[in-house]
């Protein structure tokens, strides 16, 4: 099976995350406020090189730019 999102360079994991996010946003006010907490993620990472810690980066932003790069270079 060929999926349109796969052709655009999205992974299945990303597809599931997008689908789950839109389901949470479609809920009525009360369950939505409860559910949307699950969609929040704030992870940071730093790459260590030659014994020194690099810059702190936001994982979600780094992932997003990696996706764009990957698609531009026809990877994935």
């Amino acid at each position, binding site marked *: *099976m060929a999926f*349109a*999102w796969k*052709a*655009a*360079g*999205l992974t299945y994991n*990303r*597809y*599931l*995350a*997008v*689908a*789950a996010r*839109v*389901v*949470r*946003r*479609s*809920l*009525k*006010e009360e*369950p*939505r406020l409860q*559910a949307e907490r*699950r969609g929040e993620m704030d992870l940071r990472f730093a790459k260590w090189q030659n014994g020194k810690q690099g810059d702190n980066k936001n994982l979600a932003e780094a992932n997003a730019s990696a*996706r*764009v790069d990957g*698609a531009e270079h026809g990877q994935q």
Partner: protein
Amino acid sequence: MSSLRLARATARLRPLPVRLPAQRRNYAEAVSDKIKLTLALPHQSIYKSTDVVQVNIPAESGEMGVLANHVPSIEQLKPGLVQIGEESSGSKQFFLSGGFAIVQPGSLLSINAVEGFPLEDFSPEAVRSQIAEAQKIVGGGGSEQDIAEAKIELEVLESLQASLK
């Protein structure tokens, strides 16, 4: 489905072997026409090995109904409505955001999804406004990723809107 029921009904009409009047139901007989359903989300188990009669699932390969003794299979789910026919309390419906359904030998069915809610938890207005937003993005000049994500959202929302009607 109805032909199946018919087949079962005619099977029952055949003369039964002579039985003792006070014979107890044995185990195999008691579970033979039920399927053990586990419907699990990362944060919650909606069903945990519960006996149900039938489950209708929206597989990528098409809508399918799972009864007891279904052939073992693994199905990827579309975002859509799962209908669960329970023994006593009628049928229940949950909208799942997508995941997998696994039918194992011995009438075991596991459904795994990221999000799943009963239909009454959804707001038709929220669905409608999000469809309009997603359509704007699909028609706009965003990046390929943005358009692909908006298309995923549209697929989910349209399925949800059809389920809500």
